[in-house]
């Protein structure tokens, strides 16, 4: 019941967060536009006055893409290499956003202000960054525990059929995905506790939350599964719409652009929903344990 009520609370908190959602969405858009403008220039200069890129209007065309990359390849390669630091920057940006989102979901009835959002984003930045690093290490350890024995045993055994190589891997990967639902939700639970307690003890908080999660394992995991449903529905719906439309006119380009932006907005909405639901669940279980 706690899982369901938290799930519903999360939805109502996210619904009330339209101003915050818009702020986050616009920040994504601005960053993406800053990177897309040089990309547009790159494509235009690689294509020059050629008619060949027109064939890309009808979808994927291996020959056209090969010709474009061959002619603008070095520039594209350089662009992609310069992209790598951006991924790190995106991670830092998301760490910052987490604090701001929690400031809102902890009190969704209040008035949203950018300064309040920024204040909490700054305040919790280093703690959440530490948390992100710890969880990256946890993911690495989980990966090693799950995959290393498999790699060592399949690597050392000769004469395995491809089925004998693939099936264990799929089984392990399936188990890994099931475990990931728990691990990602645990990270959100830890963030909730750090926010609620205004604590700086990240490492200790992880263990406390782990204990809390195990004590209520089934309800905690059920919340994770509930929070997975709508993202999957969203992706499936987007794929269906996208694959049914041929984007080869200005009108369809614009239409699909709008659909894509709606999807991004909804992804942000789902994230706020997830954090709000986890925060609410944390409050319920910590109240229960007092």
């Amino acid at each position, binding site marked *: 019941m706690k899982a369901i009520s938290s799930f519903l609370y999360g939805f109502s908190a996210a619904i009330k967060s339209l101003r915050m959602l818009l702020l986050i969405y616009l920040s*994504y858009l601005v*960053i*993406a536009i800053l*990177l*897309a403008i040089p*990309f*547009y220039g790159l*494509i*235009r200069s690689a*294509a*020059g*006055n*050629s*008619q*060949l*890129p*027109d064939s*890309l*209007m009808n*979808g*994927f065309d*291996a*020959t056209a893409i*090969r*010709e474009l990359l*061959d*002619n603008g390849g070095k520039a594209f390669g350089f662009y992609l290499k310069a992209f790598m630091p951006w*991924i790190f920057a*995106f*991670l830092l*940006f*998301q*760490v910052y*956003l*987490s604090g701001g989102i929690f400031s809102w979901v902890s009190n969704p009835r209040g008035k949203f202000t950018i300064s309040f959002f920024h204040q909490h984003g700054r305040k919790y930045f280093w703690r*959440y960054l530490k948390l*992100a690093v710890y*969880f*990256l290490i946890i*993911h690495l350890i989980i990966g090693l525990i799950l995959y290393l024995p498999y790699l060592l045993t399949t690597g050392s055994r*000769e*004469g*395995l*059929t*491809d*089925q004998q*190589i*693939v099936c264990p891997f799929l089984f392990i990967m399936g188990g890994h995905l099931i475990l990931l639902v728990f691990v*990602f939700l645990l990270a959100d639970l830890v963030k909730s506790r750090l926010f609620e307690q205004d604590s700086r003890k990240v490492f200790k908080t992880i263990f406390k939350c782990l204990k809390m999660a195990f004590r209520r394992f089934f309800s905690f995991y059920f919340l994770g599964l509930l929070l997975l449903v709508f993202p999957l529905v969203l992706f499936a719906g987007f794929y269906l719409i996208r694959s049914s439309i041929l984007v080869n*006119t*200005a009108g369809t*380009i614009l239409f*699909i*652009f709008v659909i*894509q*932006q709606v999807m*991004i907005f909804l*992804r*942000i909405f789902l*994230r706020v929903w997830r954090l709000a639901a986890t925060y609410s669940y944390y409050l319920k279980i910590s109240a229960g344990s007092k």
Partner: protein
Amino acid sequence: MKPCFFLICAMAYVYACPPALSQQILPAPLSPRITQYKIKAELDPVTQTVKGEVVLDWRNPSRDTVKDLQFHLYLNAFKNARSTFKAQRRSAESGQNDYGFIDIDEVRTSGGEDLTSRLKFIQPDEDLAPTKLILPDEKPLAPDIYGKDQTVVSVPLVTPILPDSSITVKIRFTSKLPKLSFRTGYSKDFFFVAQWFPKLGVYEPAGMRYAQKGGWNTHQFHPSSEFYSNHSLYQVDITLPEEYVVGSGGKLMSKQESDGKQTLSYRAEDIVDFAWTASKDYKVMEDQWKHVNIKLMIQPEHLNQAERHIKAVKYALEYLETHVVPYPWNHLTIVDPPSYGQGAGGMEYTTLITAGTFYMLPEQIRMPEMVTVHEFGHAYFMGILANNEFEEPWLDEGVNSYWENRIMDWAYGDKTSMFGFPFFHVGDVEFSRITWLEGYRPNLVATFNNSWNFPRNTYGPSVYQKPATMLNTLERMIGQETMDKIFKKYYDRWAFRHPSSRDFVHVVNEVVTESFGNRFGDNLNWFFDQFLYGTASVDYAIRTIRVNPVFEKGGLYDQSGSKTYIEPEKVEGMYRSVIQLERLQDGIIPVEITVRFDNGEQITEHWEGKDKVYDLVYEKPTRVVSACIDPAGKILLDANLLNNSYVVHPSAKPALKWTARFLFFVENLIHSMSLFA
């Protein structure tokens, strides 16, 4: 139609007869059957050894008196580091049992002469070793790399063989199979037994192919070389433990079991090679296509892909029957090796081919189909023609790749035949072209070359994809109907006769001249000289289109002893459009150019393509808005298609579409980092 109908009737007769009368599996020999092999062999799976005896009949096809017999002993390529094969690959095995060899224990003539002591290993390629290293960082080969190889043996005869006479020799041999890494050998309890017996070379009389004088054409085994042998009659008895499931390139005539062993008797007619396989794990499925019995030997974990293999081979049978000739044999075995025996995959032995797939491979990745179609195609471009794969590998691999491209695109779609996902799809013809162009230095060496002369990383693109692209270009120039005529004539003239590249080009010239007169010149030698025998590259480009108003009258004119200046007058409504074409590389092919004007008018021009720069100039009331070289996309050899067209005012839509996609990708990437934040 006729030969096929006759074949079917003959088959009906053959199958209706009691077994004793149906030893023959084809109604009549397809080839001269210069060689006939009767082999009795026994496999010992524990020692991975095949001991056997072969009775070989050989008829001297020449006017020469032949003083020796020369045999290929391919398994000696796996014997030690001194073999040409191992020395060129610089590879080593991990244990003694991983190496392989073949020993000739005894050779006797039918008259009882013992020739065993006369055996001597020879190295026919010692003088043919490449001396010039083409790549700057290539390491020189070891000095004796060609001098110690044991893959060719000469048996000098006591009594030479006179013209048109025959000889029968009985050879006892022992073959130790290597650990399977390259076509033949064992892996666990899987055996693929190829190139396993002493195989006679091909005696080329003077005038055959490039032979100036009669002699044996037996090359040493190199890493990138394949094979060359006569069409033969094979009668092979194989004995091995009864729990093994066996497949071969022959038709099973009888099976006997006793004392835990089985003896299988096979017969194969007019094929160039006899290979067989044994494993305890095979699942066998049979199907029929017209006169052809198809046997698929598949791994249990790939059973759900069986239909993919059978469908692919049926497509190939149908297509090649329609466009070339009917498949002349009445049996075909397709082998799916296990993953630990993949070294045997992707190979052809005329009526036995090896495919290859992977567990749970999606249908949209058409690897098993492509490999099956390609290896089956070798039944034609090797099996029937039997060109020399050592000296002219392109004639087999490149020509076959061209037909594989055609069959795959016809059967599975020209944009989806290799990969067929909605978001990523590639056809076989375009895949060939892309693979060649993206290969290492695509035009470094000529396609027409001995197999061992290709520098590192150039063999595949030069021998497979480039000639396929070349033939695809030729087809688009002369039409598919003419191309079919060429191959039908090629087969008619050269089936079972070991043609050369020169013979193929000769047929092309004959048919093209018959069909088109001198539209392509006196012959197509200019095409093959550049792209088969040479290293020419093609790249035509439209450098620019300039459109300016037309002016007249302007300038200084002599009037009454002085110069009078007259202002230039713009000719209203008239424009001068100049299209500047360039030939950026050394390859020359006549091209078409489509020019479009702003009133919708379209003109097609022809350019011989010889000049380095060539202008098209128009003074008209309309302006040129775009031009395109080779609008029909015939010249697949053109290395850069991006510069083949020019639009005065290009549309921004493609760039906008892909930028919008990129923007969406970036937004998703930003958001995905939230999982870890």
